[in-house]
């Protein structure tokens, strides 16, 4: 490969980091909010698939991508609400419910999305930050999903809200000590259901980004574990929305290696390069977890960090 090939490859990975990372960003923000309240929602994988289908369907039927985005968020919230309600029952484990939601979300999405595999839906517009350059590879690398700035804004808002508002304090209190929350007369289950539902809405926006921007169509292989990676990514980001942003970009970059290599003509080991995000997630989990202490920054009520 020549120097130009390397530059193209690098640009493709940088551009891919934003393109592939946007769903990670939304799902990890949603999961971050959910986990701050003391519950794990492994079912965000199912939420992601289902909302990607709903968003695509909404955009296709209404003709407006933004209505599709809204529908994706709402359908994600609906599935997450189911998770919140189920987990509020006695002796129902949030991990098991998450697995159930993964199956249910995928099943519903594949069933209802059958007629959506062929058609084209209007796509979310992109913001061309690379218009100043004459190089097509720079232009395509800097052509950014319009949802991405919304996600950045949301990360900042969430970080500020969790730290500085009464509402954020309540969520953190429920997540750190349900006893204290109960003593103050706060409904622990109520707050958790609300946080899970809001988290589902945010994750649903990530689903819309999958089906309405990149890859930009609906098919049954659309999400393969992105929702799950996002759950691990929250651990990596130490439950901080701002660090979720950095982690999402890192994982987006890792996920973009395979397609980027293919675009410059390297096709050997395609599947292995696609597995890089999973291996990276696992490596990061191994490096950051420890059996001795619970993780720094982890909500105390969270079963994940035991």
């Amino acid at each position, binding site marked *: 490969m020549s120097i130009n090939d390397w530059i193209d490859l690098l640009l493709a990975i940088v551009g891919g980091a934003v393109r592939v990372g946007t769903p990670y960003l939304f799902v990890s923000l949603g999961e971050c909010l959910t986990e701050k309240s003391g519950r794990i929602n492994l079912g965000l994988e199912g939420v992601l698939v289902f909302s990607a289908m709903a968003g695509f369907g909404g955009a296709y039927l209404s003709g407006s991508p933004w209505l599709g985005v809204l529908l994706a968020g709402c359908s994600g919230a609906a599935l997450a609400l189911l998770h919140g309600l189920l987990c509020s029952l006695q002796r129902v484990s949030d991990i098991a419910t998450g697995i*159930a939601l993964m*199956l249910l979300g995928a099943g519903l999405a594949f069933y209802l999305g059958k007629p959506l595999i062929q058609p084209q839906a209007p796509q979310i517009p992109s913001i061309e930050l690379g218009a100043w350059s004459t190089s097509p590879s720079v232009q395509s690398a800097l052509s950014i999903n319009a949802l991405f700035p919304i996600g950045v804004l949301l990360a900042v808002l969430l970080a500020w809200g969790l730290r500085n508002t009464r509402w954020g304090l309540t969520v953190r209190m429920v997540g750190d000590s349900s006893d204290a929350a109960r003593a103050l007369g706060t409904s622990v289950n109520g707050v958790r259901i609300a946080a899970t539902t809001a988290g589902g809405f945010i994750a649903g926006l990530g689903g819309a980004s999958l089906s309405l921007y990149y890859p930009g169509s609906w098919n049954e292989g659309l999400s393969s574990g992105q929702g799950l990676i996002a759950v691990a990514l929250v651990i990596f980001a130490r439950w901080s929305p701002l660090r979720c942003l950095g982690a999402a970009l890192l994982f987006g970059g890792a996920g973009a290696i395979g397609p980027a290599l293919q675009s410059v003509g390297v096709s050997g*080991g395609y599947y292995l390069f696609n597995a890089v995000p999973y291996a990276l997630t696992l490596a990061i989990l191994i490096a950051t977890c420890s059996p001795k202490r619970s993780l720094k920054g982890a909500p105390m009520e969270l079963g994940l960090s035991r």
Partner: protein
Amino acid sequence: MITPRRWHAAAEALLLPAGALAAALLAFGLFIWFGGGSPSEAWTLLFMGAFGDAFSWQNTLQRAAPLMLTALAVALPARAGLTVIGGEGALVLGALGCAGLPYLFPGLAGAGGSLLILLAGAGVGGAWVAIAGLLRQKRGVNETISSLLLGYIAIALFKHFVEGPMRDPASLNKPSTRPLEDSLRIGAIAPDSLLGDVHWGLVIGLLLCLAAGLWLSFTASGFALRVVGGNARAARLVGLPTDRLIVLACTLGGAAAGLAGAVEVAAVHTSANASLIAGLGYTGILVSFVARHNPWAIPPAAILFGGFAAAGSLLQRRMGQPDASVLVLQGFAFVFILAAEALRGRLFQLEVPRMVRLRVVPARRRVAT
């Protein structure tokens, strides 16, 4: 007071899953109805496609065989207190190990060769899931997440090898490994009887479920495993080798799922290809939860869900339902099975006499409040 309590528990153990499945079928009927279909027709087809005649029974039993093994992959770690759901990954790697062994030893043949390729599949699957157990014990990595990630990595490895280094050049449209020699394949149990194509995988599944139940109920190590699952701290305090038991449970579970993949290759597909990635590992999770991680309850649950899977194609043909309708039914069943646990007197309690006292306290507190 103890006797009626036990009777209640036994009745609950049967009624709760049955009620949950009935609710799931009802919800599925409503779902079909919203889509403009006839619920009663859907229910009839589900039953006919699963258990209606000898042919559907054969189809059902064939699909149930791998489910028993992938359910064991969830149930054994679950009895040690872990939620491991890497069955799908262990299954595909087991299939790869089974199809790959003849590449290394081209001389394999006969019944001994069949045994070796099955063991290779089980070994690969076991080693793979053991990683999740090791990571959890040594590094504190959540085993549910790590096992799922390992599953995705396993599927990527599988596709890489099947479409790359191990691809049979003769497989043009559907990349596959070289087909197994005839003498290595596993045949039908009784090809000329009512059982038809049902292969020895069913017997393997039944025997392993039986053996797993015997191990958990009647051996010292099985008992130790259940103690670890009930209370890992207490187990460590009484000096049980917790780490080793947990890794053992993961290894055995993974081996069961790997064996499922190997049997699928040796008895059904004859080579490793993408048809193996059919969600058998995920359905196994559901089967194990329905059986409440009790190996002896796994075969009936596996037959039920194998039956629903078999009926899926009938729903597709006769009612024009998408093939995902079975997934929807499975999703509903999972949700209702979990919700039903809230109704249970006390869940996941070991049947250990010493635990009875622990069981009484919360019950009394609930009466008081």
